[in-house]
């Protein structure tokens, strides 16, 4: 059923009794050309691109819980392509371009809002680092502006400019950056992929891999039986190591908890997405009115999906330092997601040493913005058995070769990325 204001109006007359399921409710078939493990944004996007771009629609997406129950539904909804290193820059811009057409692609309003993302700087050294990054972006055809203090004051007069411990000096702005409605991205891909014949199977947990005599993966064992597959793609960020272990693989990944927070809904206060450069704090305001904010990971391996107080306090300290007007705004909810923290802070999209098994992992805390791009390049890899040119550096063997993509420059210490 096509969605529009007209279909809504028509439905209103019938008391909304005629709406159908957003995605089909199906039982798993015996065999698919491609089985994707993980019904998050990346898995569903991969399925949609397989069907829409690569003509492969005999595809199942297996989700152990309900779709979008992992990080797709726990993130802070930011989209941007302001990366500085080869490998990341082109890929995230590919993703950004796909965001810009997502609603029309999917016939689903994912509320992509290009309200601007600004990274504030507080020192000459930070300014220089952002200048380097912004110039990289421009050289790659991505919009970037280096704002001075006056421009930041004009754009965000509510920041603490007067008595700050680390005064704001300026910022790197990507106007095309912004936010999108995270759940809608999941539902939109599910809706569109399902319409193209993709089977979305919830409450279906993968418990192992079927392998043939050569060791090739031929399918997956699940809580709903064995499902055969020509190829199996993993898109289970947060659980990558656990699923990979079923195939005997060890990954350059640690699982860490990242907390996020939302305030009570208030009338529009913050126009864009901001990151504080002198503390761990970033924020945007949702269309519903809540300030959505976060900071650093808690810093220790965790699968618990919940965090502790020191980080919560640290984040709020950053928020108050940056804009003391939020002191009386109340924090409404606190939650945590499991991040696939890779050893260089960048993702991995590649074949694995196991035939027939493909990996999409290591998104650290940046997976949401990558959703459409990740879907496209992973679909490309699954369909063509070759790396997409914009994801050619996300290889699994880059660590062994020494070709890390380390934006932060902190090395093989995941909790510092």
């Amino acid at each position, binding site marked *: 059923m096509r*969605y*529009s204001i007209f279909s809504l109006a028509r439905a*209103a007359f019938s008391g*909304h*009794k005629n*709406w159908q399921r957003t995605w089909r*409710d199906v039982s798993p078939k015996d065999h698919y050309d491609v089985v994707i493990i993980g019904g998050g944004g990346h898995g569903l996007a991969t399925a949609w691109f397989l069907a829409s771009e690569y003509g492969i629609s005999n595809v199942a997406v297996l989700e152990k819980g309900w779709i*979008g129950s992992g990080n797709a539904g726990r993130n802070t909804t930011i989209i941007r392509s302001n990366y500085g290193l080869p490998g990341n820059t082109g890929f995230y811009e590919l993703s950004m371009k796909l965001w810009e057409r997502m609603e029309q692609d999917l016939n689903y*309003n994912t*509320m992509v*809002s290009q309200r601007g993302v600004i990274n504030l700087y507080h*020192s000459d*050294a930070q*300014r*220089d*680092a*952002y*200048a*380097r*990054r*912004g*110039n990289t972006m*421009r*050289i790659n055809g991505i919009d970037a*502006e280096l704002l001075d203090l006056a421009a930041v004051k004009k754009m965000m007069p*509510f920041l*603490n400019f007067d008595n700050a*411990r*680390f005064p704001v000096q300026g910022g790197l702005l990507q106007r095309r950056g*912004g936010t999108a*409605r995270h*759940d809608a991205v999941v539902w939109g891909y599910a809706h569109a992929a399902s319409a193209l014949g993709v089977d979305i199977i919830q409450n279906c947990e993968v418990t192992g891999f079927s392998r043939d005599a050569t060791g090739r993966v031929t399918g997956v064992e699940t809580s709903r039986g064995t499902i055969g597959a020509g190829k199996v793609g993993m898109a289970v960020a947060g659980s990558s190591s656990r699923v990979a272990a079923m195939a005997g693989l060890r990954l350059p990944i640690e699982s860490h908890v990242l907390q996020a927070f939302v*305030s009570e*809904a*208030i*009338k*529009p*206060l913050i126009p864009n997405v901001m990151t504080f450069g002198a503390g761990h704090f970033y924020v945007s305001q949702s269309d519903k009115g809540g300030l959505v904010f976060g900071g650093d990971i808690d810093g220790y391996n965790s699968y*618990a*999906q919940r965090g502790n*107080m020191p980080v919560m*306090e640290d984040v*709020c*300290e950053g928020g*108050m*330092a940056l804009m003391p*007007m939020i*002191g*009386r*705004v109340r*924090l409404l*909810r*606190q*939650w945590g997601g499991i991040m696939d923290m890779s050893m260089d802070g960048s993702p991995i999209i590649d074949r694995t040493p196991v035939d027939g098994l493909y990996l999409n992992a290591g998104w650290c805390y940046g997976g949401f913005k990558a959703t459409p791009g990740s879907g496209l390049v992973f679909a490309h890899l699954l369909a063509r058995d070759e790396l997409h040119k914009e994801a050619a550096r996300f290889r699994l063997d880059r660590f062994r*070769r*020494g070709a*890390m993509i380390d934006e932060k420059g902190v*090395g*093989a*210490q995941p909790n510092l990325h």
Partner: protein
Amino acid sequence: MITSQPNRLASGGLIDRSAPLNFRFDGKTFAGFQGDTLASALIANGVKLVGRSFKYHRPRGILTAGSEEPNALVELRTGARREPNTKATTAELYDGLEAASQNRWPSLRHDLMAVNQLFASIFVAGFYYKTFMWPAKFWEAVYEPAIRRAAGLGRAAGAADPDHYDKAWAHCDVLIAGSGPAGLAAALAAGRSGARVILCEEDFLLGGRLLADGGTIDGMPAAEWVSRTLAELATLPDVRIMNRTTLFGVYDGGTYGAIERVNDHLPSPPEHQVRQRLWRIVAKRCVVAAGAIERPIVFAGNDTPGVMMASAMRTYVARYSATPAKRIALFTNNEDGWRTVEAALGAGLQIAAVVDARPDVSAAHRALAAKAGFAVLNGFVSGVDGGKDGVKKISISLAGGARAEVETDGLAVSGGWNPAVGLTSYHRGRPKWQDDISAFVPDGAPPGMEAAGAANGAFGLGACLRQGFAAGAAAAQSAGRDGNAGAPPVADDEAFSLTPLWHVAGKGKAFVDYQHDVTAADIELAQREGFESVEHLKRYTTLGMATDQGKTSNVAGLAIMAAVSGKSIPETGTTIYRPPYVPVAIGAFAGQHRDENFHATRLTPSHHWAAEQGAVFVDTGLWKRAQWYPRAGEKDWLETVIREVKAVRGGVGFCDVSTLGKIDVHGPDAGAFLDRVYINTFSNLAVGKARYGLMLREDGMVYDDGTTSRLAEDHYFLTTTTAKAGPVMQHLEFCRQVLFPELNVQLTSVSDQWAQFSIAGPKTRDLLREIVDPAEDLSNEAFPFMGARKVSLRGGIGARLFRISFSGEMAFEISVPARYGDALVRNLMLAGKQFGVTPYGTEALGVMRIEKGHVAGPELNGTTTAADLGLGKMMSTRKDFIGRVMAGREALAARDRQVVVGIKATDSARRLRSGAHVIPKGEIPGPANDQGYITSVCFSPTLDQWIGLALVERGRDRIGEIVHAHDPLRGEDYDVELCNPVFYDPDGGRQRG
């Protein structure tokens, strides 16, 4: 003109009639009493309409009397103290309180946004996902701004919060949430057992439901029992009662979060006091006696002002002497709802009728009805007639199928009680369904936590007391306190009979989540569209995501979902419960850490002297460092820095470098230890000598650099960069304790012990001779380049001298004990006057290091190897060291790596900027020919032009090549020449001279 309080009873209640207070709501002045909440005072003044809903802007009244309130949200206070979304039901009244309704325009009574109700048939759950997609550009320009303005609730202040907050720690054996009968009984038992007890109560009064419902405990009225209990608890030295304090979260290891509203009951905090305090409470055991929340029944018109929870209705009557209605109707499915009838009658109010969903109303209740002259109807309320002025009439579907109508101005609703399962579920434990009370009760509580009383599904007063007491005693005992807990308080148990009823089907909007305008029909739609999982339901309809966190709506919502999807309620399950239990001000989480106190500040030993000189300071990590020392008449910082550099290169200057990390490395294996952490060798360094060292991370990238001196056979003095002082210390301790425990070495940070200054320039020795004991020989022969030793200073103090140079000049670094640092600079100034001694800041320091081609922070960026920095030859091939193997990986040895090289503009007048990229000359910039970037730049007074360092592909093989500096961000493009990074004195003759 202050209105009278028409709906205030003449006597009774827990308000202080001798303390009248004035307040304003939406600009109108009212009167109330000490002991009121804003809600109770509004009720006493006959105000029924207090807010508008989120989506449809429907008129709303007060629903509850506690922190579960979804409707009565106001903007409290004004100006910078304005607090949006404040629950009138928990806001304590104070004299002069100002509140305004929110989310309405232009006024609460005449809210034009209520036009949304006309489109209600379109604005169903999730409608926005299906439209607003065309044209694509319209989202940011048209649709989204309109939605954002319409959404949201109250307005934040928009100005810096003028109040202060702080944070504190507390420790106890037994932490108790709630001061109702279970909580107080738990405190008694634990306290008597000798436990250290903290009891948190969110209300300003202690007693919980006893405050409104009374009862008899130990043969005395509940109020008397409460005051006796509090008196006994006050005699126990380690029992601490914290009212106005909400326990909002439970974290690992028995750490709990609580928010104390220290001064929210006053217009503004007294001087030196905070508004709120965040508590981190560490408790061995926790008893959750947080009570239960009465749940609504979903029926058409259930959001009309004047429809109120039955327990809230009697709270207002009994506790506040405020009457929400004159002629009350009750809609109940359980026995407890009838208590509201008793309370109302006791206060002299009329009962219009009782609609009881249960067929078997007790004879006692029927007798009461007969006596008081009201009807008891077996059936359901199916409609409400009324509007913003309140309820006028209710329609009833009688059990037999007939309909009835009853005129009333206030409908009390009781759908049963839900235990407050928040705290017990915050570690992702899922509450379990208990059939006899048709409610979820705690299960899977965090370690050390136990629920008691109503929070545990025990609704009888006697049971609450028994459970609370037992839980308190058990908690004390498991915390190792086994004193005599004495006898538990005793009370009878009321009958509890309930017939589950969630939703009365019928025409008209029936609200589940009042604040977010989620109706029963929305839930049915969500199910139809496949959003059956409760988490999907929540996200698709926004059920339970409002400021009340669904305290009144979640269970009803999932019960309706269970019904339409043909599952049981426990099969349907609950969503994940997430802290905080009540919304908490962000300012409280930040506490003292805002403005200049966001982070601590570190000052160097010469800071106050530098401030006296008018130095401009720069933040370097937590340090304040002198960036330059302006003099009168200098037009800008550049002029100042040029003067400082010239003074050093032509005479002598000094700079405080105390911020460098300093580590004493002691022990017989100190040399062997350093050999393993540095790429070069230190075990063969002679005593009295210094050496530059480079450390890698285990992944082969450069970690840090610095100079390390050997002061004795078994004592090295290691320095780190300012930025890495802490991390390097941690890394070295890891090497000492974990990687190389067999080495006999000891590490101590001495960063703060020594005031360290670089003294540089051709007249350095002249200046030092003024300071150093004449017996010390500073000649090149006696104290050559890279010499390091202790010396005596004139006037009798000891110091350390290091013949090292960052500037490229003849230079020493001198260390004195930190409390002499101030005296040292003053002595240097005095003694150096004859040589024109000049203090210089970090900027001049940076200029001279670039002139000299020394790498620093911008080049040591964590992605460069020793070879990239031109220091590959330092890597010893004769020993193992951290990072050696990984540094050899193929991509790190690749020919096309970006390496450090010098740059200078071909146009000597051209200013350079860091962050510009390097592109081959004549090519159009693109990802394929982006060959590097400029890392550090300065104006070199020595060369009289801007120079810099850059990381450029094969840079060292391209010396002399003209390349293009491309800086689109700043709109600059210019040619630069790649050159030797050592611009100044490449032979090093000056520093060795």
